[in-house]
């Protein structure tokens, strides 16, 4: 029957002709191909010293953001933990004291905020769920480690550096 797609090819295995049986022409053309690659620039990125640029929609390690006055934005509403399909996020909320107004933006804040990086699938749903624009997955690759407990990242690793120290560096 006639093929409709016209893509069908009937393969016939012919015996090799003399040049093919000699192998040498094919070997010579193969050798020229490989020697061409010898002088090409290697595609290798020497990783620890040299890092490839991330794409703009890259999702890496989480960071908890501060507002323009250097106060933590997170209000411990728990929407990120609720939206997380991997159940990687936990937190404990606390009430802000009067003398802590310069530290936390809202009256409630997260005294403990933990993300288990072994559970996290970097889907970015926490980022989407957050009403306070407090969490973003804009960090680098999460580094390797030896123990499971070391993959549970607390506020010490997640919260952005304080504003003053950022200004001092600049």
């Amino acid at each position, binding site marked *: 029957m006639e093929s409709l797609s016209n893509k069908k090819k009937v393969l016939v295995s012919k015996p090799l002709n003399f040049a093919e*049986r000699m*192998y040498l022409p094919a*070997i010579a053309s*193969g*050798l020229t*191909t*490989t*020697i061409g*690659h*010898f002088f*090409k*620039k*290697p*595609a*290798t990125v*020497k990783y620890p010293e040299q890092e490839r640029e991330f794409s703009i929609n890259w999702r890496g390690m989480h960071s908890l953001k501060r507002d323009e006055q250097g106060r933590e934005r997170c209000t411990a509403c728990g929407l990120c933990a609720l939206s997380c399909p991997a159940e990687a996020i936990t937190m404990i909320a606390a009430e802000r004291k009067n003398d802590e107004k310069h530290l936390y933006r809202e009256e409630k804040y997260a005294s403990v905020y933990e993300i288990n990086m072994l559970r996290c699938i970097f889907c970015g749903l926490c980022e989407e769920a957050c009403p306070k624009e407090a969490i973003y997955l804009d960090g680098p690759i999460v580094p390797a480690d030896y123990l499971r407990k070391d993959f549970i990242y607390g506020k010490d690793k997640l919260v952005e550096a304080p504003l003053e120290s950022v200004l001092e560096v600049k």
Partner: protein
Amino acid sequence: MEIDFVIEKFILVIALFAISLLIAMYSTYAERKVAAFLQDRLGPDRAGPFGILQPLADGVKMFMKEEIIPANANKWLFMVGPGLAMLCACIGTAVIPWGQDMMVGDRLVKLQVTDINVGLLYIFGVISLGVYGVMIGGWASNNKYSLLSAIRAASQNISYEIAMGLSIIALLLVTNSLSLREIVSQQHGFNWNVWYQPLGFLIFMVCAFAETNRAPFDLPECEAELNGGYHMEYSSMKLGFYLFAEYINMFVSSTVMAALYFGGYNYPGMDYMAGLLGPTWAPLFGTAIFFLKIFAFIFFFMWVRWTIPRFRYDQLMSLGWKGLIPLAIANIVITGIVIALTNNF
């Protein structure tokens, strides 16, 4: 026998041994680098600048590995195998003339360990012996894959030895000598044997690939079918010896090809250089040229390995028996006719 003769030969033997091992060591590094460059990669570059210490790291790794002898292996033969492979690989360089006679002070030093008058046969014998290491190792492992590999190695080596021997006969018709010293010194300047024996060289080279078990004829250690073949049961430095012997064999084969067909230490303009450099340094310069040729061949071995896929076993056999042997015989006949005609007319 004078004492200084003994000392001279002793130094030469030690130097040759050290150079063979050093070259084999850095062939492993070069192989990985060449493979990387041919595949647009960088290759090992962590140990030392450009990864230059990589062979040392590999060696230390090999020594530190656990030594395992399988319970049902023939223990004695199992241990002899790698040693034999290594021994056969190392003794091949003894008859190679590495350079012209060199003046050291007022003493004429021959840059050759021994000039036996059947040097070519010696080389040929040593290369043939090399397969015993593989066979004994494969048999003593008491493993069917190793045994299959040993059988493959034996039949492959025997098949290709015939074509190799026949191509050498055609070369002998041209050179009229079996002494390697004689053969190399005949190729003075640019009068290389490859111009007279291009087909013979091609056959010899293909057979050298097969004899050293290098790709595309590396069927004895065919990873995909035999899980590494004859050295499957080996670990630690015994495995290291087998792998190392392969690289030394490659070095010896390259040396023999460079000496027999590409003029050894001869190069165009050598008389001019001899006048320029004097009787001490000119032979050494020739030796350096010789090593350049050897390195070029080693590079070619690697280049081919990373280009051509492995032959199927029946293709290997039909190439050897139906392709190379008739070609080699035809080469002898043609060479003989041409020599008879040029001598008589």
